[in-house]
């Protein structure tokens, strides 16, 4: 069975993430996700955020799902991730590992409205003029800026699109 690290905020898209895990299992892919019982593998000597980074570095495929929320900030022991969210730290670790090993794969998926708002914001002359009706978490912007450096990302409208795109992309490569 192929393996993949699933990186996403959980409480705001719980059922969607659970459905994605099922979809991946259906594709024969084992998803490593922090809500799984075996994620910590009995480890008590490591901060949970660092366990995430450790697994991202070990597992050759990385799937990122970005919706409206940025999630919690990294509180582990690696100072290079200070000030980043956990999801962003995981992405940085996956990106670094992929640069070293071309066989690794990144699968970034971003909710279309989030991506569009971010891109509009990037083009603003005065970025402090952030309209109040733009409802995305601004703590997402550093991660989204980093995603810009990738040659491609996929955007999705609904969780239905997301699952279909994952089946197509991940199912093809893994």
């Amino acid at each position: 069975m192929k393996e993949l690290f699933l990186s996403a905020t959980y409480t705001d898209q719980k059922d969607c993430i659970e459905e994605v895990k099922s979809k991946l299992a259906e594709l024969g892919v084992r998803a490593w996700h922090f809500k799984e019982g075996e994620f910590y593998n009995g480890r008590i000597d490591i901060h949970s955020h660092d366990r995430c980074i450790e697994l991202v570095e070990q597992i050759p495929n990385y799937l990122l799902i970005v919706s409206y929320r940025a999630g919690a900030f990294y509180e582990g022991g690696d100072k290079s991730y200070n000030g980043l969210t956990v999801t962003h730290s995981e992405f940085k670790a996956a990106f670094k590992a992929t640069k070293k090993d071309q066989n690794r794969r990144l699968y970034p998926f971003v909710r279309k409205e989030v991506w569009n708002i971010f891109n509009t914001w990037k083009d603003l002359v005065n970025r402090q003029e952030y309209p109040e009706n733009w409802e995305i978490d601004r703590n997402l912007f550093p991660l989204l800026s980093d995603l810009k450096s990738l040659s491609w990302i996929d955007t999705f409208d609904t969780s239905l699109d997301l699952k279909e795109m994952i089946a197509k992309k991940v199912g093809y490569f893994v």
Partner: protein
Amino acid sequence: MEKNKRALDHIRGLVEKLNKSVQNDITLEDIAYVSFTYRFRLKIANESQVILFERSIIDDLEVAIDKYQGTEYFAGLDSSVKFTIYISLGQLGLLGNFSISEELINDKRQWIKAYRIDTNFNEEMTAVLYEGLKDILSSLNSQLEEHKRMKIESNEIEENIKWVESLIKYYDKNKHLNSAGAEIKNLQFLKAAAVNQIFGLEKLRSQENRPTTWRALNSKVYDIVKELRKSPFLDVQLPSFIYDISAVRRG
């Protein structure tokens, strides 16, 4: 609130429908949108309760109402919002003896067809599943005896008995129900075992007059429901014999 109006109205309808199935009066006082979350403030048992729905699911539901009514995708979103309401209120004891098992056996969504997944159940859930399997075995054996007495076909029951026995043997040998690559049919039977335990707990709860014991039983019901709303169970369809078990349990 204009944005996502149809999705919010849909949830309003679910609350009204739920109001007809429970003893406490539930009224929706208002809906507010605060930082990516829709907050439904309800009045129930003379207390205010807030149920939160994330923007992503409400956005998806709004699109699904327009484009995907009658599909499994729509059913899945509908199920998500319904169970958010049931669990939020039910675990506080505010739904009284509301039968969540009925909702579980009638749940609709896109079910996984073929699937292998690693399972790792905690001690408490393992005990629930094992006891549930033993109970199902006893129920299926009684049903088989009746079929034999009436001289009617019983292949399906015999097959289900074999499957339940193999899971019980697996536990007896390994003292757990974990597996690297559990198959869909095993998960269907394990899900049925958990639902069977909910039937039993609901029955005890409905006969219980002591508030402390009632609360503990109610809490156990919703702890199991929460497990069933996660991987590996969420997208696994219950086996059809659950309706037989349900019929027996409900007399």
